[in-house]
């Protein structure tokens, strides 16, 4: 079974799941995905990208220079996609259990 993904890693994988993005693009996407709850700093972003790259979940696809600024693009790898699928299933199952328990305890109103 794959190791659990941290919140930041999960959001970064989600950010590059549909298209390749550069560092700033990933940060913006993570802000949007998390409803403005998670704002990655550059140190946190590149630390997480290092880990994900070493684990083979993300890969750098290309580099270009735009208006004098270097942009490297990152995309999810095939094993990253598998890990993301597993993480989504795990979270979905957890939400299911939590919903059932809260209903049983009378803390969640049925939709």
């Amino acid at each position: 079974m794959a190791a659990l993904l941290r919140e930041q890693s999960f959001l970064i994988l989600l950010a590059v799941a549909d298209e390749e993005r550069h560092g700033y693009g990933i940060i913006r996407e993570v802000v949007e995905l998390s409803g403005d709850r998670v704002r990655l700093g550059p140190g946190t972003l590149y630390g997480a990208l290092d880990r994900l790259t070493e684990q083979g979940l993300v890969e750098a696809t290309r580099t270009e220079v735009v208006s004098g600024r270097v942009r490297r693009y990152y995309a999810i790898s095939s094993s990253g996609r598998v890990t993301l699928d597993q993480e989504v299933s795990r979270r979905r199952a957890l939400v299911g259990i939590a919903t059932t328990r809260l209903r049983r305890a009378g803390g969640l109103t049925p939709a």
Partner: protein
Amino acid sequence: MTVVEAQVRRLLRAWPAFDRADRGDEIVATTLDLVPPGARRLPLRLAASLFVGGLRARHRARPPVWAWLLYGLGWPPRGRTRWLASDALRPGCGRRALRRHLVACSAVVAGLGAGLAAFIHTSIAPMWVYFPLEFFVMFLVSLSPGVGWGSPSLLSAIAVRLAEEGRPAEAVAQLVVGGLALRRRRLGDDHLTPLRPATRLGGVLLAAARAEEAAAVLGPTFEILKGTAPDKDWPTWLAGHDLAVALSMADRTEDAARVGREVLFGRREIAGADSVGALKTASNLGSTLRSLGRYDEAIDFLADTFARGVRSAPDEEWPTWRAGHELAVTLAEAGRPAEAVPIEEQVLRARRRLLGPDSLDTLGSGCYLGMFLQLSGRLDEAVECLAETFERAKRAAPDEDSPTWVTGHTLAFTLALHGRLEPAVTVGREVLEARRRLHGADEPATLTSASNLGVDLRLAGRVDESIVLLADTFERGRRTGAEIGWRAGAHLVDSYVAAGRLEAALSTARTVLEDGVDLDALGVERLAGLRQLTAKE
């Protein structure tokens, strides 16, 4: 370099050497993107994130003992690329490698000896058993130094190190080719393991604008890949694509066009003519042909790429809308600015939709559209477009020369062409102050703005102000050897003539001539005063 960028680069020293070499510019660019427009200092949150991230990266880069031992024995462990590369990038890596090699071999042989002693139930193996065995094994290992140095990760790192030390590009190429040959003997001809890091290395060098070295690494890599994996976009055709970009940046445009055509054919073969990869290569090829002055071919390529992009990837800035922009620029350069206008208008609308009205690319499109309108003689529309772009750019990107201050410069020039000299002077002064702040007073861009403003001041009847500014620009240009200084000198003669100060005009004209400047080569149109005075001489 701005104050904020200097702060970011200082904080980058907290990161390991390899991270700085491999992605330092990328981290700087991302951090600068996060800085709010107009900020004069790096926000504390970003500074802390950079610093702490660097310390964490250093901590992560420290290897466990087993990895260190394996490395010392000559087998760089898998998945430790960043640490290996960081080690190779620090000075004295060869000396350290030898020391590590000796210590690791001793440790392993001593361990084996102790194991053997335990196996044969001897309490302590005599020292004379360890040492001859140890030195014999070390001797055998030292006979094959290529075992460790042939590793692709280490190879890439050493090549980066050599490139940093300014060693000739050929040395880097030889190293890569030699290492690749070694790996191919061990892994087989069609194994991609050694070729992928070589392709990445080329990308690293390219991103660092070290085009010659990137071309030296990517050239042989691409040649091998074409034979071994012609059906793979990564790494084969991406290596070719990057090679074409590197050749183009290194001013080897004919070679860039040849490789670009080959890559385009390859990418179309495996993914189709409408694939994003093929469109990107075609767009680059069009730009390369333009720089060769082969406008008709460039326009054909770019028009085809743009049409395909609009049809198959209308939401992709790159390649679709960048190809459109390149097409418009090529048409304008080919003397067809009127045809460039509707294309750039289309690009501008798309970029506003996809990137937002304040992105640098969108603002750049606004600037170019203004230029194309001006070149087409539609001065009212040009002024309107440039003024709107300039106002927006000043708010969104006050520290970017391009597009913000380039737009202002073009606006001032267009206003002067239109005969609206007072507004031209106001805008020109604003641009000059901004460029002095961003680049310093002696940079060619600043001197160009000063020279244009000096001319506009004279035409607006403010001859004394014109003389002060042009004299200063002339002196700065002479001191720094910038060509624009001599243009300012010629304009200064005109201003002296306009003020009736013929002695000063004559003296300036003499200085220009004594410095041996080829006036015709300057292409200055307003040389009437200078020629008249030198004829009197």
